[in-house]
């Protein structure tokens, strides 16, 4: 067991002085305090006992406000449920799960502490003994892993005069995918030559069940002719299947890109991958530091987006997958 290194005096002083809750005065609260101050001055100046009574009530309400808001934030348990998919610069659904053992919570606002994520989730009333899911539309300004240090829970209950905040220390990470948009460039030619089964002519006539037959048009692939039916019909008939011919693309992210150029390229690759995968093709990805084998489907798209999100942040966290909150 090792004794920890002694922190600096400044850090220790800050830690000593840091309040367990942060309190900020709302606009209404500022007005309230100014009026209270005025009433206090009036009471002292005139000796009017009714003003003293009013001043007592106003000050008591401040104390009550503090006590009730503290009771609101006490005994809370918060965990992140996370987001399905977070794309940069567009709102995405994010969720926290909150519960408490006893008592009630009112007017709770949730947000991520010390993170670039904007947006809040709100909960009007929190019952005891039941976990509530709070949903928020957050937005991330840029692609990449976002380190999450804690969840801020704020309440303005009961009178909206003060906003009291409690930060629940909760380490986590949210991976923000590249911004969604349109790919201006074509993805280039598909892979050629035999590549596993993909190069086999038998597998280039589409996949899935037969959808129907139609007459072969000019310049169409003769390998799709259904000879038996063509013989019976006396003209060339082409087989149409549920899915058209699947091809393989291997998208690449050039090395040496930085800054905005890298961002734009990541967004473009993500858009191209989305288009190709949506058409049923297989897409692979060649990154400067890793390679994704071509595959089709939604899970491949997710893998590609994750890989693109990590480009440029490879040294951010080695164990990111295990801590990913999304």
């Amino acid at each position, binding site marked *: 067991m090792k004794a920890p290194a002694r922190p600096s005096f400044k850090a220790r002083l800050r830690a000593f002085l840091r309040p367990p809750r942060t309190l900020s005065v709302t606009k209404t609260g500022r007005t309230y305090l100014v009026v209270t101050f005025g009433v206090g001055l009036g009471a002292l100046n005139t*000796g009017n006992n009714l003003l003293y009574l009013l001043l007592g009530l106003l000050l008591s309400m401040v104390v009550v406000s503090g006590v009730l808001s503290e009771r609101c934030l006490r005994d809370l348990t918060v965990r992140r449920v996370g987001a399905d998919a977070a794309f940069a610069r567009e709102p995405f659904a994010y969720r926290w799960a909150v519960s408490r053992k006893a008592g009630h919570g009112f007017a709770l606002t949730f947000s991520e502490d010390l993170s670039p994520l904007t947006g809040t989730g709100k909960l*009007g009333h929190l019952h005891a003994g039941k976990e509530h899911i709070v949903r928020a539309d957050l937005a991330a300004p840029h692609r990449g892993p976002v380190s999450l240090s804690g969840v801020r829970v704020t309440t303005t*209950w009961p009178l909206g005069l003060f906003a009291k905040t409690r930060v629940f220390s909760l380490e986590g990470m949210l991976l923000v995918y590249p911004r969604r948009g349109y790919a201006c460039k074509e993805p280039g030619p598909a892979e050629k030559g035999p590549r596993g089964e993909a190069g086999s002519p038998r597998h280039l006539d589409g996949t899935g069940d037969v959808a129907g037959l139609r007459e072969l048009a000019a310049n169409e692939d003769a390998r799709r002719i259904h000879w038996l039916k063509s013989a019976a019909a006396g003209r060339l008939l082409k087989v149409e299947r549920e899915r058209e011919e699947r091809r393989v693309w291997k998208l690449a992210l050039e090395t040496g890109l930085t800054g905005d150029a890298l961002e734009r390229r990541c967004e473009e690759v993500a858009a191209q991958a989305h288009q190709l995968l949506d058409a049923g093709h297989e897409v692979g990805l060649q990154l400067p530091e890793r390679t994704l084998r071509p595959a089709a489907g939604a899970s491949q798209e997710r893998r590609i987006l994750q890989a693109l999100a990590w480009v440029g942040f490879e040294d951010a966290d080695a164990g990111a997958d295990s801590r990913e909150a999304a």
Partner: protein
Amino acid sequence: MKRPLRLRLVLRDLAAGSAFGAMAVSGQLPLWALGLFLGALVLALCDVRLVARHSRLSALGLLVAAVLLGLQLTSGAMNAVVAACSFAGLIAAQRMLSTPDAAAEGQTHLTGLLMVAGGAALSGDMTYALCLIAFGVLASLSLALGVVEAAVPDGEPVPVRAVMRPLSAGLAFAVAGAVAFFVLFPRLNWAMVGPRSAPGLGAVSSAGYSNTVRLGGAGTIKGNPRVVLRATLTPDPERDALDAYWVGRTYDTFDGMEWANVVGAKQTERQITLRPASDTLLHQRIELLPAYGARTLIALEMPSRLGNAMAHTPTGTRSSPVQLQGGGEVRFTIAAPSYTYEAYSLPPDARTGMSAGLVQAERDQLLAVPEHLDPRVARLAAQVLQGEKEPLAAARKLAAFLQRDYAYTLEQAGTPEDPLADFLFVRKAGHCEHFATALTLMLRTQGIGARLATGFYGGTRVDGGYLVRAGDAHAWTHVLVPGRGFVTVDATPPSNRTSQGSVLLEKLLAFYEAVEARWRNSVVDYSFRDQFELASALVRPPRRPAGSPANEAPSRLPPPRAWVTAAVVAFVVWRAARFASRWTGRAPTLEATRFLDRVDALLQRAHVPRMEQETLEDLTTRLARDGHPLALAMTPLTRRYLEARFGGRALREGEAEHLLATLRRALDAEAARRAVKPAGQAGPTARAS
């Protein structure tokens, strides 16, 4: 924009109404402002937001109202506080009728708060407290619902019932806190008396005092239950109903229709002495309420000295000189809605003598009769008296006759030309003024000096003092008895002397007045002196019981209430300390870390060899393994550090010092041991591990 919760808006509008009520109870707001606000409140409660579409027009209306109020202010027709309060009420009305958004909410509550503060400056009425509490409760509920409503997603219900419970407890705590603050906060101001000038709603002056008394009035004042006077008597008669006359003034000249005085104003002093004082004077501390509505000082018969008057004007409380008028009347020189003053009266059986201020003209008037007095009056008097010449006996004989043969009534049909003759020979019924006038004039016709006195009769005991109502207004006769002075003789039937109002209404009002008296004493007039007395009452030794022997030594111990107070204070301090200790929950950990720092510093100063990155427990283990003498001191120290840091067993008070002292001694011993060792046998040097 989502539709606001209807209940919240109703609560907000009612809160604004309560705040306006806090000002309106003073009775000083202009009627048009009252009407406008009440109309706006009704419309707002019906959810008719007139201003929502005509905001500019309403703003223009507000501007016009501000100009009107400004003009009234500059012309002196309205004081600044009333003008400000009226304008705040109009702003609140405009905000209530506008679109219910967040800005309108805040502004409505803010103007409500300002109106409540204005009400405190305008009124000392007990109703103000009710309005204040109502405003606090309603506005808080509205604000709380607004806060929750903002956090509830669209389409979901606002948990109104869940909000109410914690908030109700909070509000109860707030009211208790307000009372505690009010009682305990030291009064740092010089003005010790709050505003008591506002007459309040419905406090129409009703004493009916004027320079003349005209016979034939309807006598409606006898049915008025409003309290006009509060008095505290010393010594206290301790009777539930006071059988006493409170004289205001007397009249000496009767012209057949009305009574007046022959002499006008005399000297003005801070105190007026009407009669020489006797050994035993009855002291009265009297408060004339706004319902009194006159400037004549009232005192128990026969008053000896009146003065030390304070006039409670709208601008504050001022000392008021008093002026002696004809008929023994003493008046305040400053006009104000209410007054407090002191009076001293002679005891009932004392010889009063002539009033000091009675001039010759007034004495001459004591036998004057109207020029056209009906001759039957004198004949009737002579017939009743049967030759009785002794003034007091004659007066009592006539009074008994009038009480026996004449009826008391407040009903008056028309205005007869000769009201006295009408009373004596036609209707044979009248009220106190008729009886008193008849007795006075009948005595005068027989050569006995007499005059009419007016004031109040009776007094209801409330909260250690006495209340006198407007309905207790009364008239009676002063008979001049040689050697004794003026003696009171009352011809009115005894059962009709006091207030003739509804008994139930009087009981209700008596209860209200008792509460209001308590409110005034405990709240409006609460001062630093009261705080001091409250504090000293907690520690003052108890009085010796009446039956206890005089030689019994009083206990030197403080009274039980002092112990209870001390216990309560100690409990509060203990709770506060416990509450504060929660914020320093990290102290044990920090204590242990600081302890480790001090141990490390000691070891470093003593040049104890340590490996790089070697922890305290590793060092102790190594020393113990090597059989080092320091291990004996280090082992318990290290164990306690680990327990304090990680085991949740904090270091006890002084334990760290004790352990460090032990280590220091061990290090000194080790240094001494090393000093006598040869230089070649030094310990191991540090090496990288």
